């Protein structure tokens, strides 16, 4: 086997790469066909996602009520949000409070159920279906159902609490308890859902040989979970955490149906505030500005999560 000098191989490589740039008719046709296959998605994305996104960016700099042409007003909408809109900042704080309560509980709850369903139980499939069922209930129906369940006078929750000597709170009618009550509704509807399924998949992906090795080394159940299982499913936890925070921060239906933002705006989340400005007051320009501010907050939060994920997320195979 002869070794060519480097200069010679470079001289040969240059015309080859030039030749590669010129596509054969077959390659060209394949590329066109590939783009055509992708075109429904490209068109859909352009028309229904990218287009409205760019349009809303422009509209956020205008005064616009749908029927009249937008009037350019610069950054006035953004300035208004921070200086004159007394509902904007409190609605952001309330939304974060909701997320702070709901995300950890939902993550822990889903993980616990996934661990339970990962055991070798009788009729595992039936149990998995059983836990998944609430997710199939439309959130609107769940919200209406829970309004009755949480009724302080005739609701099942306070009735059960009374049986053990606890006087239940006003739940959705209380400014203190309204957000925890909405968290409860959301948890019921989501804790056994897709998040749990993803955890289950993550748990089933943990290499058995590692668990066996730990067992041989004398690790107990808790040690195996803490030192093997948990690190191995950190990518799954991270994925669920990112999505969970985004979903919690943009929660809308449950508050819209259960409390309409009340009592006394106790559940007036940012999504309701955007909805109110867009579809009740028809300040589409201002609503777009609020949506962009909200997007920037979400973006920053997600960026920070990714930035710090290297400290605790372990990817098998990664250095």
């Amino acid at each position, binding site marked *: 086997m002869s070794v060519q000098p480097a200069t010679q191989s470079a001289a040969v490589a240059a015309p080859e790469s030039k030749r590669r740039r010129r596509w054969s008719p077959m390659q060209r046709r394949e590329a066109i066909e590939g783009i055509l296959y992708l075109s429904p998605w490209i068109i859909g994305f352009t028309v229904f996602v990218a287009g409205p996104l760019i349009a809303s960016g422009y509209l956020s700099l205008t005064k616009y009520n749908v029927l009249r042409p937008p009037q350019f007003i610069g950054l006035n909408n953004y300035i208004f949000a921070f200086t*004159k809109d007394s509902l904007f900042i409190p609605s952001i704080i309330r939304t974060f409070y909701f997320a702070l309560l709901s995300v950890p509980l939902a993550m822990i709850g889903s993980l616990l159920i996934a661990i339970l369903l990962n055991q070798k139980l009788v009729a595992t499939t039936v149990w998995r279906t059983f836990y998944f069922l609430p997710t199939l209930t439309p959130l609107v129906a769940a919200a209406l159902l829970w309004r009755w369940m949480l009724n302080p006078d005739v*609701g099942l929750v306070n009735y059960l609490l009374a049986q053990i000597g606890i006087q239940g709170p006003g739940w959705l009618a209380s*400014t203190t308890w309204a957000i925890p009550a909405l968290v409860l509704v959301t948890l019921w509807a989501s804790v056994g859902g897709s998040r749990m399924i993803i955890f289950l998949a993550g748990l089933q992906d943990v290499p058995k040989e590692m668990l066996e090795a730990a067992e041989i080394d004398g690790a107990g159940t808790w040690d195996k979970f803490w030192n093997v299982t948990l690190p191995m499913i950190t990518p799954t936890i991270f994925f669920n955490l990112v999505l969970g925070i985004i979903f919690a921060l943009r929660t809308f239906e449950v508050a819209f149906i259960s409390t309409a933002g009340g009592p006394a705006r106790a559940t007036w989340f940012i999504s309701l505030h955007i909805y109110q400005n867009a579809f009740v007051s028809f300040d589409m320009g201002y609503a777009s500005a609020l949506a962009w501010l909200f997007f920037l907050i979400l973006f920053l939060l997600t960026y920070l999560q990714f930035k710090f994920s290297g400290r605790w997320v372990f990817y098998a195979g990664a250095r």
Partner: protein
Amino acid sequence: MNTELARQKVSRRSFLIASGATVAGLALAACAPAPAAQSPSAQAPAPGGPAKTVVRAHMVQKQDVSDWIQMGLTQDIDGFVSNNPDIDLQLETVPGWTAEYIPKILSFAAAGTLGDLVWYPPRHRSHIAWGISYGIVTDMAPLAEAAGYDFLANFYPGAVEVNSYEGKTFWMSYISEPIVPVIAYNKTKVEALGIGEPSDDWTFAELADWAQAGTNADHFGYYRADRGGSFGGAPYLRQWGVEPTSADGTRATFMDTPDEFIASLKFNYDLMNTWKVSPSPAAGAINAPELFGGQKVLAVDIWPFRIQIYPATFTDFEIGFVLTPVVNRGDARRSMLNEHVFGITTASKNPDKAFKALTWFCGKEMNVQALVQGQKGPIARADVWADERIYESAPTYRKLKPIMDNIEPDYLVANFRGEEFDQAYQQAYDLLELGELQPQAAAEQIQMLCQEVLDKEPA
């Protein structure tokens, strides 16, 4: 065999061609103009009859709105269908309420597919924005003039005033009634308790005493039901001498009369938190009809349309009706008009025919029949209130006639942000009813929050 099967398979090329053709076809279909059948001028004449003009009326799907107009067409009330064979009134209904209806109408308007008539339930004259800012409805005055129609000869002046702005009349009343002017009470139970029946000239102080006498372990004495907030509660505020906004609608004027406003809030606060004669919202969402029907509350404020519905629904006990109290005996009775209105769109190609249809279902006979048949609330027409037939079916309406004769219009929110104004009021009012805010503090907050809304740019 395999080769033959492979030949029968769809090739990638033919699949792409078929897909491309389908997408192009769909795109063309989506971009094509609306079908000719929706165009009023394109209606073919019915066999042996005159050419029909379609008049499209947008409204919510509701018993007293779309259902009643449809019944009017079916029953051919006032001979509208038989006398107008050239008009085909088509009702295009939207399930839900304003949250669903309004965006839909704006979408139609933006897309240029709006029909001829639109319905609207105004809040502090927010509907005027659809005339002057949004350009959805047109001034009806020229149409009325051409048809020889006099608004003031048909409607009470207050009902014409709220629908007009700067000399233009954009809307016509369809439902127009005094806001919560009466209290329904459980006559059977009141007699059993021996607490005496209330009289139409009673005062708020007497109501409080009466409610305390009527409250026991089984039931509350009174609940303010339909008169919460700054819309349903506006006649109540006026009765106390409080006007929510200035005449030009730019200033919240609750605190122009601070003593009266705080007293009015204190009365509500005391009902729930001091005298405890009313259920508190802290105990959960209150469904007043359920409470009243279940005999858990002795008396509730009601909208006029419930005058017919309650006796028909709650048959276990006898129901009496009494006018809402005044502050001091002999005080002039204050009021506010609640309305559902219709307007003719600027997009209408046949506004004259739309006007004809509008004047029919907002006309006398349709509305007398609506009350006689118990299908709808009243209307601000003197001729309807003068018709004895309505009192035969619901004698209590006689109590409302003097109020309607002097009905006061809704107050003005000049930037047409009426719903926001109500929400701002409710924000502090909720805390008052929950006992988390004292009347003085609630009054100050209401003033501040409502003024904040009025300071916004026009909607």
